[in-house]
């Protein structure tokens, strides 16, 4: 197989713990990032529509224009579709720009689809996430057609706004403390 994300770290963030492997029948959702077309052209267009000295300045694209520009090739769409069909994955939806495909499938099917993946449930208080601690691979035929598969390794990033005075046990802004 082929590993699209060999450099993706898997680490269980603080607070999360492994609650065991999913049963093969449990449903999960995977997001396939399909290979886009005309990315270099898109980059040039962004420069043009954003630069006041360009004739195209301010001529932003509609969602349909973006779709026409970057939507994956028929070959990409067809290859991915056939591959999913072969594994009995039918419940899929594409976004308007056609470059993301989101599929619902049983964990057992997902593990056959993505050799190497092994889906576990992780819990953090009331939060729950399903992730694979081991890297996944894809069929060689998809190397030119899929960028990555979402929903395997990256945990939801936690935002933390801090109240510094409380965090440090001081009830005073730090600048004042520093000058003291």
């Amino acid at each position, binding site marked *: 197989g082929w590993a699209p994300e060999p450099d993706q770290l898997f680490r269980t963030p603080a607070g999360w713990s492994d609650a065991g492997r999913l049963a093969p029948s449990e449903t999960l959702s995977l997001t396939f990032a399909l290979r886009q077309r005309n990315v270099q052209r*898109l980059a040039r267009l962004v420069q043009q*529509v954003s630069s006041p000295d360009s004739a195209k300045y*301010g001529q932003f694209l509609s969602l349909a224009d973006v779709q026409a520009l970057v939507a994956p090739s028929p070959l990409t769409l067809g290859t991915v579709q056939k591959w999913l069909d072969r594994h009995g994955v039918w419940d899929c939806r594409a*976004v*308007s720009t056609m470059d993301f495909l989101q599929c619902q499938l049983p964990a057992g099917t997902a593990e056959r689809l993505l050799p190497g993946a092994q889906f576990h449930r992780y819990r953090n208080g009331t939060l729950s996430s399903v992730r694979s601690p081991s890297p996944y691979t894809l069929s060689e035929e998809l190397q030119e057609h899929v960028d990555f598969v979402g929903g395997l390794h990256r945990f939801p*990033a936690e935002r933390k706004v801090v109240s510094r005075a409380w965090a440090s046990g001081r009830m005073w802004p730090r600048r004042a403390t520093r000058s003291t």
Partner: protein
Amino acid sequence: FHLGVTPAVIRQRYNLTDGDVGTFQNSSQACAQFLEQYFHQADLSEFMHLFGGGFPHRCSVDRVVGRQGQGKAGLEASLDVEYLMSTGANISTWVFSTAGRHESQEPFLQWLLLLSNMSALPWVHSVSYGDDEDSLSRAYLERVNVEFMKAAARGLSILFASGDLGAGCRTTSEGKHVFRPSFPASSPYVTTVGGTSFRDPFLVSAEVSDYISGGGFSNVFPMPSYQAAAVKRYLSVAPRLPPSTYYNSTGRAYPDLAALSDNYWVVTNRIPVPWVSGTSASTPVVAGLIALINDQRLRRGRPPPGLPQPRTLQGITSRTLSPQVTQGCHLSCLDATVEGQGFCAAPSWDPVTGWGTPNFPELLRAMLG
């Protein structure tokens, strides 16, 4: 004199008059929440009741995309909504709430999918989310970067917090320390917002860089040409730089600009909470200002600002974003070489506060010109 940052303090500091509020009905702005962080309309109403006197404003969010939970409000979500609607006052505000419908979904990826699926979106988005660049695969980083290109091509302005760990720190496999850039802050297709604090914490005084303000250089994305001159100048005139082995001086440099990030008042679960800090606070403030500029542009029949960097930031002078933040350094590795100090603020662009903090009338003039 003040007892912490409130909308009045921010509006005074960045020279917003009571008339600097949204007036065009098609103006819009948004913030994104992940991981079941919810806001409450009642908190927003109370916040505006306590702190929103003196300028026309709205007291409710117009649209929530996704699921708003019924549990306790999150401090982060309250902060975003309350300050986005304080600088971007009287502008229609949306909240994207993408906790992930399925346990296997990635909430941030879900938000990107929404952008790719909705033809009508707010023009300005404030997102306080970030991850270590080195913890993400190259394939993911590059693809998400293209998603930001798609948004920029549509004229959307997406602002990300620069992070709260200064330059960051990582130990390499050889046991050496290097700085640790944050993503999406390091994407060249978003506007990244750093943080400052008042030199005198109880006066609307000059700003110094906030030691937590995230900033530095990407190890993945090359420096866009519009940054080259400013970064070269910084690296040549900065009096004290960390050793060059700690950072990639040819990478996308961030942040782009900054705003106050220390000592905010937030109302959450009906309780006013003081001393809230982080670039999560400065980002909605700047996003609201961009939304106000957008409002003025739309009212004049002009297109929205879109991605400000290439168009505006390269031409911005100290007259536009002023007064310059020239004092203070941010955090980095605690080792004998850098002793916890990353980069320091300087005149013109620097990797702690970018081009500095906004002077709204000048910024508006530059972006309308």
